[in-house]
């Protein structure tokens, strides 16, 4: 009947490869080939520019509430780039770069934020779930998909996003436990951006790290510098390969920071200090990764400018396509769920039609 410490098998690590100045740890550098390295950079820039565009469009009344990703580009672009075509991604809502690199047209994402259900439609052959704003609803979904893969014996993996706030939800723990118990090929990727709307990370959980929550479910956790694309890439790559090889789930905590508001409906100056934001602005993933790429000779000023121009044109074109396709029939929203509408919905549809008749299009909400 002794009392002694218990040692557990799962391991917990921290990984950072590129520092805030863009200096690299040579031993840990994954030495990505230039195409892949620049691809990550390009999508980070695209996510940033699109993000800026979306905030303006919301302020102009052209899309609805929008949740910006500024500062978190490395965390999601360098993770999603690891996923193969046959793998699945279960996104939350702060990963626009992930959608773009998987081939979602930019205007589809605009449509989502504009309130059009077409914004939830993945392009043919893309194994992504659409944007899901609910908190940690992603984990059970991803676990379910991973279970399907296991049953079919497919050598695929699922990448599942959620935020630091999501880790306090029951869904998060159910998904994690199930994935661990069934040894499923899923990688839980928590973008710890320090703020769940106005709740700071310190108030979210007593755990020192979010990564350590994996240990309770019997698998490995790793905390990475989420503003370091190389660390994010390496951790995700290892976790995905382990999952495909039957090694079970991993929890990755990407420590990053939301430089902008939670969504366009709140004012972060009311709950956090400018000093904190300034500190994190210095750790912005884009300039530090750019420095690294330039030093490695993978990027020069001309290419940087070209990428900016390309991205600008791409965003402008998407915006035009979005505007051109806005005149849809609001009544469509009743058409795709049921073969035969239940009586209650028939009445709602009728009421809605009358309201549109009365008040005209476009101001329904």
């Amino acid at each position, binding site marked *: 009947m002794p009392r002694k410490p218990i040692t557990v098998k799962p391991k917990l690590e921290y990984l950072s490869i590129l520092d805030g100045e863009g200096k690299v740890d040579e031993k840990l550098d994954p030495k990505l080939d230039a195409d892949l390295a620049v691809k990550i950079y390009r999508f980070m820039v695209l996510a940033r520019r699109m993000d800026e565009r979306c905030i*303006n469009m919301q302020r102009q*009344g052209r899309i609805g509430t929008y949740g910006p990703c500024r500062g978190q580009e490395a965390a999601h672009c360098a993770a999603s780039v690891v996923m193969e075509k046959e793998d699945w991604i279960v996104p939350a809502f702060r990963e626009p770069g992930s959608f773009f690199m998987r081939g979602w047209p930019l205007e589809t994402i605009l449509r989502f934020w504009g309130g059009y259900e077409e914004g939830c439609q993945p392009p043919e052959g893309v194994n992504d779930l659409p944007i899901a704003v609910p908190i940690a609803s992603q984990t059970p979904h991803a676990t379910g998909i991973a279970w399907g893969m296991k049953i079919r014996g497919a050598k695929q993996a699922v990448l599942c996003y959620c935020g630091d706030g999501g880790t306090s939800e029951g869904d998060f723990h159910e998904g994690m436990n199930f994935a661990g118990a069934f040894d499923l090929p899923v990688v839980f990727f928590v973008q710890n951006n320090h703020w769940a709307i106005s709740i700071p990370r310190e108030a979210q959980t007593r755990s020192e790290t979010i990564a350590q929550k994996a240990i309770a479910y019997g698998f490995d956790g790793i905390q990475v510098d989420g503003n370091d694309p190389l660390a994010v890439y390496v951790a995700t790559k290892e976790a995905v390969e382990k999952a495909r090889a039957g090694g079970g789930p991993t929890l990755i905590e990407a420590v990053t920071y939301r430089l902008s508001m939670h969504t366009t409906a709140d004012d972060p100056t*009311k709950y956090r200090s400018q000093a904190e934001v300034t500190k994190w602005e210095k750790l912005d993933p884009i300039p530090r990764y750019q420095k690294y790429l330039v030093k490695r000779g993978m990027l020069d000023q001309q290419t940087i400018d070209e990428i900016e121009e390309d991205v600008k044109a791409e965003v402008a074109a998407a915006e035009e396509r979005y505007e051109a396709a806005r005149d849809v029939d609001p009544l469509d929203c009743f058409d795709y769920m049921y073969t035969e509408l239940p009586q209650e919905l028939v009445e709602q549809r009728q009421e809605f039609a009358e309201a549109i008749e009365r008040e005209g299009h476009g101001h329904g909400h």
Partner: protein
Amino acid sequence: MPREFTLPDLGEGIAEAQIIRVLVKEGDAIAEDQYLMEVETDKAAVEIPSPFAGVASRVHVKEGDTVNVGEVVVTFDNGDGSAPAAKKPEVAKTAAPAAPAAAPQAAAPVAASAQRTKAAAAPVVRKMAREMGIDLDAVTGTGPGGRVTKDDLTSHAAGPAAAPVAAAASAPAPMPVATKPLTEPEDLPPGTDGSDKWGHIRSVPLNQIRKTIANQMAKAAFTAVHVTHGDEADITQLDRLRRNLNEATGGDPKLTAMTFVVRAVALALKRHPAFNASFDEQGSQIIYKKYINLGIAVDSQRGLIVPVIRDVDRLSMRGIAHALRHIADQIRTNQFAIEDLRGGTFTITNVGAFGGTFNTPIINHPEVAILGLGRSRKVPCIRKGQLAEKLILPLNLSFDHRSTDGANAARFTRDIMTYLETPAMFMLD
């Protein structure tokens, strides 16, 4: 073809916004995404970028206006020289124009129904209206921004009875108002000019900080049971000590009487936790705070604000002087973060800096007490049978009589005064 830019819903379910600054003028050539104006909703202050490029042929709003979502804020010309088509009528402002002819109660429904196309109301009120068979548009909303409330429905259902109509009928004929007022007050904030039956007036909508102050004050005044206990501290010795210290240190940091008052209050609060607490009416309990965060009420460009010095009891006199200096700097540059204004447990207001000896400060809700300082002045006193000149600092402690009693307030004040009158006491704690 002119294009109109209407105020979008800037948050989720925002009904209106107040214009803080207009950044463009009529006739300006505007680039796409150029900021047009800064507006404040009840959620956030945001800048609005222009959705079009073109010439702003008409700016429909000015600073201070409250604008409903969907109202036209700027009309753009496409820049090809074509004149804007027939001008839109002036957009309806939520600030009801003063109706000269009748009592406001009678005028409001008429004005409101003419302007409003769709009544604002919560879903529960809409449901209730449907059940009662009432057309919401026909009801006068008395809620924020003219929202229809449950009470409005009830009074509407009771019939357009006596009150408003009778008021209108019995309202005296308006006084003839001179076309130009004889005296014009200087520097009125922007608003809507009009007149009441006694003369010209200007209605100025409340800005966000004024609204917040009004709500906080009303909450405190109508929940806390205010009693103000007054006393006078002889700070002659303290003043001498202060001057000596400032001389010795070269005034870095400069010690003021406030520095010592803050320290005295911090030390006294440790012994009188009843004044470092909040009164929880719903929970039927008093919540004692184990930390002492002193709020210092100050007059800023934006109005009254109360920056907080955290854990003030752990600060040295020097630390307090620095903290007060920091607050003064923040006020001067108008830069303070919202978290600097939160979490206070007790407040000091130095109205005396502007003059006056006696005041009855309103408690800073949900705290339970506030100390108001008067202006210190030299007065003749009798000490040991001798007439002496003494420097006297008036102290006015308002406390919530629900949570503690007058004897305690007197003891607490006495304790503060002991430090101020015998400054050597500071060395003990």
